[in-house]
């Protein structure tokens, strides 16, 4: 049972972080479909840090530097989306999709190159981080508390305050609702949108490293992050682009994702003899159902997905 709670919380943390990232980007008016790719690149940044940092580093420094690596990689990568969609007015769907493919391909190429350079027989795309992972986890009577659970809560509160209680957040949301009106009162729409996308890059990267640290102690980058970026988008839509609802939605989705990890630990579920594939499918099926019932009265930012053109009215 404690295992189920542990996995639910950690997956919910991932989903909260990434969905909040999507929330910032969409409130500024840019649909960030590339979150999946951003997660992969963020995970790569963190994993590379764990690989190259000395193992005897103090846990605090380790956590801080790994997070820094993930955030920096995520931000830099999301700049590709921002540049294409804001400055060049490219189609946000195409660019987002391209970033997803590019993320997995680039991470695979980089990790394979590193592995092969070290040992010519090693053609795997796996990075192992058994030792550094310990810095992130505190064991409380068998329950593995992960620092990311706390980080997710802190970021949730910060996101709420930034969006609703600061000038910056309110201005950003104006750019997602009616950019021309925002511009007419002197807000730079381009700057706000850049800020929104870069924040989503930072949170996406953070979510990425959190995801690969969730259950395992090595990651095969060829597999990307298994559609988690898209689950986060579903969480965001279910959460109606509002931070607190997003957190609740993330708990629900996290629970179903956790179930596929630990269902065999429950006699009741194990005795049903359902193939593991069904549990693997569960989060995706739930999200489809949830979307079907919530999208009708969607409160999406009005101007999302439309490139901002100063000369339009």
């Amino acid at each position, binding site marked *: 049972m404690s295992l189920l709670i542990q996995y639910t919380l950690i997956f919910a943390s991932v989903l909260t972080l990434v969905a909040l990232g999507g929330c910032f980007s969409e409130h500024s008016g840019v649909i960030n479909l590339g979150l999946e790719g951003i997660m992969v690149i963020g995970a790569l940044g963190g994993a590379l840090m764990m690989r190259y940092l000395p193992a005897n580093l103090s846990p605090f420094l380790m956590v801080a530097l790994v997070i820094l690596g993930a955030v920096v990689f995520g931000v830099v990568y999301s700049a590709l989306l921002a540049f294409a969609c804001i400055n060049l007015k490219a189609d946000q769907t195409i660019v987002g999709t*391209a970033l997803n493919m590019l993320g997995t391909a*680039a991470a695979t190429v980089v990790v394979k*190159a590193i592995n*092969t*350079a070290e040992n010519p027989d090693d053609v795997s795309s796996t990075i192992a981080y058994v030792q550094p992972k310990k810095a992130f986890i505190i064991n409380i009577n068998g329950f593995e508390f992960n620092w990311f659970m706390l980080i997710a809560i802190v970021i949730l509160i910060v996101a709420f305050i930034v969006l609703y209680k600061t000038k910056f957040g309110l201005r950003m949301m104006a750019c997602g609702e009616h950019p021309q009106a925002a511009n007419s009162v002197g807000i730079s729409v381009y700057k706000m949108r850049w800020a929104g996308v870069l924040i989503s890059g930072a949170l996406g990267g953070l979510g990425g490293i959190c995801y690969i640290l969730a259950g395992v102690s090595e990651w095969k980058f*060829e597999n990307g992050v*298994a559609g988690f970026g898209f689950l986060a988008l579903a969480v965001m839509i279910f959460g109606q682009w509002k931070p607190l609802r997003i957190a609740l939605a993330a708990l629900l989705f996290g629970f179903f994702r956790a179930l596929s990890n630990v269902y065999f630990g429950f006699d009741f579920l194990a005795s049903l003899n359902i193939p593991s594939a069904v549990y693997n499918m569960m989060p995706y099926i739930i999200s*489809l159902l949830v979307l079907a019932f919530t999208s009708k009265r969607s409160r999406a930012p009005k101007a999302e997905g439309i490139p901002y053109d100063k000369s339009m009215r």
Partner: protein
Amino acid sequence: MKKILKNEGVQSLLASLLCIILGLLIGYIVLLFINPTGAFEAIIDVIKNFFNYAKLNLQLKNLGNTLVKTAPLLMCALSVLFCYKVGLFNIGAAGQYVAGACASLYAALAWGWGWLPCLLFAIVAAALLGVIVGLLKAYFNVNEVISGIMLNWIGLYTANMILTNVKETTSPYTLHLRTANPSAILPAMGLDKVFSGNLYVSIAIPLAIVVAIVILVLLEKTKFGYELKATGFNKNAAKYAGMAEKRNIILTLAIGGALAGMGGALLYLTDYEQWMCTVSSVPGMGFNGIAAAFLGGLNPIGTIFASFFIQHITSGGAYVDKTMYCSQISDLISSIIIYLCGFVFFIKYAFNLYLSKKENKVDTRFTKKEMEEIQDVQNAKGGDEG
């Protein structure tokens, strides 16, 4: 010359070529970073693909292999293209492709069906998957990209579950079609002989090209295609004009699904590949289809060539020196190409701006000359009066 440059099709072609060149260049730079010594050879190996073999018959045989995988890629690209023309982004093509592969393999291996019923079954199964996306979009306002992605994963796990029933006992792969049920293999009609006896070459390739032409005609020359495109341009206007916009959305995704599903069947009914029942990521075919569709300038004929090119470099990735590089470098190149394809409208816009500026310059010069003439005339007149 100027007329040619102003032609929409020519501009698309130039933009696509620019994307390819930039994509290859960036791929080369990445290779340089990994290991500068063999980078140039590696990128040439990728571009050469089957030309890496010296003998003609081996070249033909490997060209055949590339073509075997071009057919399903072309189908996926057509699926993406068709839906995009109606304003829908069918990222679910990847899952529909899986559905087609799964349905055709299961019908062939479990029920012993012949190739034609297998192919039709695959088309129907994948079309149904497309219909789900369409229903969700039309009646529940669910973004087709999100539902498509969710269905990709649901389709993948379902396929794994179903195909586990027809797999080899000792491996995670499905049974060999050639030994288990040869009647399900697509007929070659003598094409195998053209490619030095390549067993996998079949009617899949001409079939895919025929479908591309059918799609072109359907979109450009029929009332049905016009209605679909009108729905894509403006859903509300189409509704106002008396078109059944909900039906059109569902129908479009059904056709998109059918196309991608046919692609899955066209690959797996050649026995070129066996399905691995433990595969944990959605096959890249559907996503590469997006690349091919946009690289082809969203034109069915252009897509034929773009699909071949994408498959050409993807297959070419296998020839890089594995002691230094990995074959995923070609995935990297094709994803960079898609990213750049996002700029196509911008490239065209900048190009047209440049062209019209040039024209304007000529115009001003001409008017200057004219002005002088006018002035001369005026001067002469003035002289007369004076």
